[in-house]
């Protein structure tokens, strides 16, 4: 395990600035926070599960009002039953009067990255459990009390590379940044383990980040 202070020293050392004269601790810390956030978005590093109160007859909620570290929802349940995602255009086409049909929500609609709408709108006050992708605590202006960011070893190199990338760019050594940026882009594009995704068996075509099926992958 490394703390940010450890990685700051490593980055400064890589940039030949051990004393932190040109690349101060505060600046490098900002680079690392960017790197951690980037890693969190690409690898879903920080997930949070919260109990969110729904109000009777209110279908839409601005999640940023309650959770400033909100990125997007990953899983939603009510009383341990899943509430699945549905698209707005589907609901508008199939159930255009959905806002009047109140009950226990069965689906949710993502409206941009700010809002969630629940279909059906809740008929009474109730709680919903939401697991969402969150920003790392280091990027919050007021991190939760007692949170001391510790970076797991497995992410150490990638976050350090990101700090090195911004430090090198600041120095104007743009030829060096190309290799670092390429490495970061390749790591960010690693294909995900899709075996347990709901629609894994229904995919019509592999995305450009997944290797296409070969002859040996096909069932006999």
């Amino acid at each position: 395990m490394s703390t940010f202070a450890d990685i700051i020293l490593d980055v400064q050392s890589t940039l030949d600035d051990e004393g932190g004269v040109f690349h101060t601790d505060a600046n490098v810390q900002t680079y690392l926070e960017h790197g951690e956030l980037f890693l969190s978005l690409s690898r879903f590093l920080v997930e949070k599960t919260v109990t969110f109160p729904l109000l009777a007859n209110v279908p839409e909620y601005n999640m940023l009002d309650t959770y400033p570290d909100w990125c997007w929802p990953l899983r939603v349940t009510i009383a341990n039953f899943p509430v699945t995602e549905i698209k707005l255009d589907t609901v508008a086409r199939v159930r255009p009067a959905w806002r009047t049909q109140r009950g226990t929500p069965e689906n949710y609609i993502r409206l941009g990255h700010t809002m969630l709408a629940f279909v059906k709108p809740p008929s009474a006050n109730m709680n919903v459990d939401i697991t969402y992708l969150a920003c790392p605590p280091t990027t919050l202006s007021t991190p939760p009390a007692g949170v001391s960011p510790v970076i797991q070893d497995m992410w150490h190199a990638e976050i350090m590379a990101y700090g090195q990338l911004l430090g090198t760019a600041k120095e104007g050594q743009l030829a060096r940044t190309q290799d670092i940026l390429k490495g970061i882009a390749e790591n960010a594009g690693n294909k995900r383990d899709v075996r347990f995704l709901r629609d894994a068996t229904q995919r019509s075509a592999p995305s450009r980040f997944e290797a296409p099926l070969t002859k040996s992958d096909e069932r006999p």
Partner: protein
Amino acid sequence: MTIPSDILYQCHDLLRLPVNDATWDMKLQDVYSDELRVLLQTTDWFMETEFPNTVANQRRYVAQDRMRRIVSVMYGSKHLGKVTGTSLDLLRRKWQAQGTGTVDEPGTPQVWWHDETPDPTVTPQVFFIHPASTTSVANGLTLYEVCSPENEDPPFIWVRPLLTYLTVAGFREGSHQLRDMNQAVFFRALSQLWLDVVNRRMPR
């Protein structure tokens, strides 16, 4: 319009600009405002709801200034169909002559549109419903809309680094003595990487 202090500080650092240089800070502020506006107009990330009142016999409504694109319009909690003025001509030839007799009576709104309309006063915030509502109802319409934020502070924490890089790139692309296209290209590439990751990882 003010660039957030933390983003300004990071731009100073990455650009190696002196702190409290009013000229460059003003330039950074302009670039930041442009980049924020472009980013939130080209994505559907920032959405809000709005609840305008309906007025009897009125078909022309105006959404709030910050609205950039209407995603859906509901009347009485029911989604209205989206059409264009041209398709409305085909659907109901006399719609434009509303109020001049019996040609297009108000009723329960069924469709909405904001384009291809022969109205010289139309701005992006203007939209129409058809038929016009027969009654005035407080909060009778519900709009789902893509908006600009209320102030220059970006609404999402995760978008702040992206805005920093876009601002640095935009600054380096400017016509002044600190123009540096190599660095601009690098920060555009870094911004694009962030956009790629967000677009790929976010649920669709």
